[in-house]
């Protein structure tokens, strides 16, 4: 229709018409609105599911809580499991954080070289490694070798899961340290190792702490390795012996959920409440730390 017009101003539309949709715009606008509604609905769905799950755990779990619940063992409470999880996660953290920081230091400060690329790839792959496989691996490595389950085995498995989170978070924050700091250190004649240990790492402590908290939150909720490597009996007595199969919270929840015992369900909800509350608190805390450090860097 308009292809023949080459002289001035023969438009396919009347420019002086009111500025309401012409041509196919009405239909296209409707399609766009549908798409926008769909996206909004999807977001609402995600928030809704989060709310439903959290609400469910809250409502069912709150009823089971009591002082006994926290301090006594089965069948009244999950005290030993709480202690067991604390012990296992603490040991895992003591393993994972130094190792993860060292890996990150290698990637950033001694960076490059031929092993940097496979190391980075390995960290990324490890992040998506099925936790049951990690459990099977450590079963072979430790449980088979020592012929018994133990808290140590569980800690090593959790440390592997935590490693990539700590390493990646530390690497990010080390990269944020300005090169000028490193150059100044060199110019003053301070050796690499001294400047790394006394200047660079301390300035990255906030980021390392955040990464650690996130890693702990992840590890505390991991169940699959624990089932294979330590006990999921709800635990009658507190046991601090790391060479024994100590009870733990996620394993307890799993065990109670598989038994068709309604009383057990009540305790499982309670344990779930405690676990979820701790993990959510850790996530929120990490986020707050992150925002604060971001605000500090923006100056």
């Amino acid at each position, binding site marked *: 229709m308009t292809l023949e017009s080459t002289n001035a101003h023969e438009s396919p539309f009347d420019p002086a018409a009111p500025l309401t949709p012409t041509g196919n715009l009405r239909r296209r606008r409707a399609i766009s609105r549908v798409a926008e509604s769909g*996206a909004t609905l999807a977001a609402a769905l995600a928030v809704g599911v989060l709310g439903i799950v959290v609400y469910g755990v809250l409502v069912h779990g709150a009823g089971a809580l009591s002082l006994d619940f926290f301090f006594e063992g089965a069948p009244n409470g999950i005290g030993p499991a709480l202690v067991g999880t604390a012990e296992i996660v603490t040991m895992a953290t003591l393993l994972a954080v130094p190792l993860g920081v060292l890996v990150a230091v290698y990637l950033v400060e001694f960076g490059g070289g031929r092993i940097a690329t496979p190391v980075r790839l390995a960290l990324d792959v490890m992040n998506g490694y099925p936790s049951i496989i990690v459990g099977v691996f450590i079963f072979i490595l430790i449980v088979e070798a020592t012929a018994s389950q133990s808290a140590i085995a569980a800690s090593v498995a959790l440390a592997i899961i935590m490693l990539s989170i700590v390493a990646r978070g530390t690497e990010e924050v080390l990269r944020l340290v300005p090169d000028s700091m490193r150059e100044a250190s060199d110019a003053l004649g301070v050796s690499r190792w001294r400047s790394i240990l006394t200047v660079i790492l301390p300035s990255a402590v906030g980021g390392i702490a955040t990464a650690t908290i996130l890693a702990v939150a992840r590890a505390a909720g991991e169940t699959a390795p624990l089932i294979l490597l330590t006990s999921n009996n709800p635990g009658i007595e507190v046991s601090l012996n790391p060479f024994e199969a100590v009870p733990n919270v996620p394993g307890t929840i799993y065990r109670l959920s598989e038994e068709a015992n309604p009383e057990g369900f009540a305790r499982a909800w309670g344990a779930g409440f405690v676990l979820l509350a701790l993990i959510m608190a850790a996530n929120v805390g990490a986020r707050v730390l992150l925002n604060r450090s971001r605000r500090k860097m923006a100056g």
Partner: protein
Amino acid sequence: MSTAASPAATGSVQPSRSRSAARRRSLDRFGDGLLRVVCAAAALTAVGILVLSAYQIFDHAGPAISKFGLGFLFSTEWLPNFGVFGAGVMLYGTLVSSFFALLLGAPIAIAIGLYLSLLAPKGIRGVISPMVEMLAAIPSVILGFWGILLLAPFVQKHVEPFLHNTLGFIPLFGPPQTTGASIFTASLVLTIMIIPIVASISRDLFLAVPRDVQDGASALGATRWEVVRGIVLPTTSSGVIAASLLGLGRALGEAIAVAQMIGAGEKINTSLFETGDTLAARIANQFPGAITGMHKASLYYCAAILLVIGLASNLCAQWIGRRFDYRRMVAR
């Protein structure tokens, strides 16, 4: 009072100073070297863990591999008492549940990513983004427990009958079973797990599409959706695919929630509403109680298969992500 620095203070003249300086320098060099070696060892440990785990698992699966060969992948007989094992049921369950979760979850997650990056005002984005990421933080054992006690009955009472009535001509949507433990409900929980991973990465990808190209599209009289469909999505397509593969990996490897919800079925049922099993869930269920050598070896064989599938999906994600994005693909 003179404030000029004395020559002695600058330290290179007197012999005793140069001796301690030399000692300091060699200590420094030693320290540098030591730190470098220690860090390199740590880095290699990361690689070593992966390599060693793969080796050990395949090694322990050896007896089952040599006895059953590749037929293990297709055989659906799993009879510990008779020493006959086959992973067909679990392989089927793993693939069906994971791909179902991906098909359902990825579009929802991409829509969420679009909302968070292009639609939501900054304040709302700051609130809803963390909430979506919190969804990923829920431990799978809690999700599975909630799933079997609260979600499954609801689905079994309301959703499955509806689907059966409307889509029952497709064998996938057979009649609902009594307990609600089924591939379908397990897949729903896997969907919940996949969504935050894909959504967060997609959101970041969409946010990174340059503003000026989107403005150029708007200035041509295009609606918001047309800008998304014509510019934002094509630009980020490979990143979104990589993110989806990462989500798939999560679903493939999930043992606990699936074990709680899928019902430990022993045969391949065509209907999604019946029980089934996955590789990860079977390992979680039977590994602690396995006694005979062949039983254990077969479970290791299952782990080996799972390792291969999980690695394949993850490596594909990394490869696609690295080729087209400069940022590494990592699930948050």
